[in-house]
């Protein structure tokens, strides 16, 4: 990480053309791949899992009513499962992004604003 906005003040202004030029840099293609590698499967995954849950709630009520223990049934466990998967994906994404995405994004941001020599 080469800059900290508080210490260095806002980065120098750049033109739209300078920003657009970064689009053809192979590092940008790599940055995009890094992001999409997580968000595309994660999005399809949680949407499918949620849809499955709603479909089960509408069309598989006997299954949803199966008692697992005490008074706790499948419907309640699957509902809590939606909570857990949401927490898990949010946590996993932050971890993935801060390790794999942020350093590359910051490098390219600085390359646009300060040039390559910093």
């Amino acid at each position, binding site marked *: 990480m080469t800059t900290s*906005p508080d210490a260095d003040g*806002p980065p120098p202004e*750049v033109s*739209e053309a300078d*920003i*657009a030029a*970064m*689009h*053809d840099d192979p590092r*940008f293609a790599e*940055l*995009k791949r890094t*992001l999409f590698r*997580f*968000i595309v499967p*994660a*999005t399809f995954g*949680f*949407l499918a899992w*949620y*849809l499955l*849950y*709603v*479909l089960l*709630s*509408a*069309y598989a*009520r006997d299954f*949803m*009513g199966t*008692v697992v*223990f*005490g*008074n*706790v*049934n499948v*419907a*309640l466990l699957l*509902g809590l499962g*939606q*909570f857990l998967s*949401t*927490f898990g*994906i*949010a*946590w996993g*994404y*932050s971890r993935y*992004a*801060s390790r794999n995405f*942020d350093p590359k*994004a*910051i490098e*390219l*941001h600085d390359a*646009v*604003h300060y040039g390559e020599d910093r």
Partner: protein
Amino acid sequence: MDILAQAEGSGRTLTMVLFLATVAVTIGITIWGHRYTRTATDFHSGGRGFSAWQNGFAIASDYMSAASFLGIAGTIALFGYDGFLYSIGFLVAWLVALLLVAEMLRNTGRFTMADVLSFRMRQRPVRTAAAVSTLSVSIFYLLAQMVGAGALIALLLGIKEGETFLGMDAATAKIVGIVFVGLIMTLYVALGGMKGNTWVQIFQACVLVGGAAVLTIMVLGQYGFNVSNLLEDAATASGQGAAFLEPGLRYGVEVPGDAVQTMWNKLDLLSLGIALVLGTAGLPHVLIRFYTVPDARVARKSINWGIGLIGAFYLMTLVLGFGAAAIVGYEAITAQDKAGNTAAPQLAEVVGGDVGGSTLGSVMLAVIASAAFAAILSTVSGLVIASSSSLAHDLYNSVLRRGQASERQEVGFAKLASIGIGVVAIVLAIFAQNLNVAFLVGLAFAVAASANLPTLLLSLFWKRFNTSGALWGIYGGLIASLTLVVFSPVFSGAENSLLGEGVDIAWFPMSNPGLVSIPLGLLCAVVGTLTSDESDSEKFATLQVRALTGAGSERAVNH
């Protein structure tokens, strides 16, 4: 048994005092925020200096409305499991915002949703469309909250037919409630701007989550922290038995002997589920919160705070709903309010009374009533900010003044706009106060999911997308959701519809239009795009680099 009516004298006064005290704190914060609101960035985005936890609390406060607190707790109390189903959609929806929208929106926009939508399009038509959709969503949502607030004040003060409190009968208390909420929310926004309002929302999130947490612990304590016993009591008390703990009593109801109606009811459940999960990331008051932080990384962290708070809160409403079913009971709840909106406050009074006598009962009622008002006020003020920012930044400055207005003029117009929206919302809510407007929350989510989210995603990810596509997408999604709702059973032709049973223009069989309107909105956006030759690959390149790296993004301001 009429629990709230017993809370006469000292109980009501306590509720009023605690409620007014929390309002006084928020007004103090607003006046403080006023001193730090000078530039357009201050007014629209609070100076972009909020930290992750601060924005996370404000996100939770914006999002957790009367519908999420009293509505979900009440639905669980009366219909069991199906209320929980609602909260799951509300929570999972945040992953759309986290993974696909928040960071890129923060990096490419300045103040409003339209900044991103119009980035590579012709400014004036796209901003006009985005402002129309922002205003529609905000007004629908505002109206539902304010009508609810009016009814709530009368109920929480326990004013029954023929009774008066401080010289008000129930009908007057309703109007006073609506006007009061309208004035306070306008004051927050016109005076405090985004900076003051964000701090107010942080405070209100603490009141709401804190109040709910105390009550949840008291309820669980009565059951020795054994959830299974609580569930058993709730199921027994409901008279529904095991069915109370399963889906199907409220949504997707199976009508014996009517296979067609059963089919529509189940599709309606799917439609609701889809609109809930896709609507959140298109709600204007949610989107503008991502502009209040220094960069995309803080925006991401703030959503994690939000997801944690909102998730924890919905788990508490699950306990409160089942607790109300078990401890207060169906009869006592519906005697106060047929929709069950008073289940949580009633539970507070009974459980407080069981633990520490009638004084603690009154205190807990006052705490939960304040939490409910915090939920309402923080949501409506967020909606007023979103709509006045859009009116000032998109319609006034970009469309009418072609971007030539000074910051001073734009902020001045935004303050005026917030007062105008406050007045319109008060007047509409008074007219609608006796109508069944609960469906408006669902409509707001359906418009957000049909008009806003598809165009937002296409403008971030689809190179070919253009002005015509954005216009078709926004207007198509908006008109489709509105039309389908007007011709649905929530509007006419049913016992509890807006116009009553006497008028019947309904031909669309579902209450929630999402299942049809979302694909239709997306289709309109695609067809609109392909029928126009406009395409600017250079601008798309700029947009993508900005969105992913944060190059050229708006910076925080220091005072």
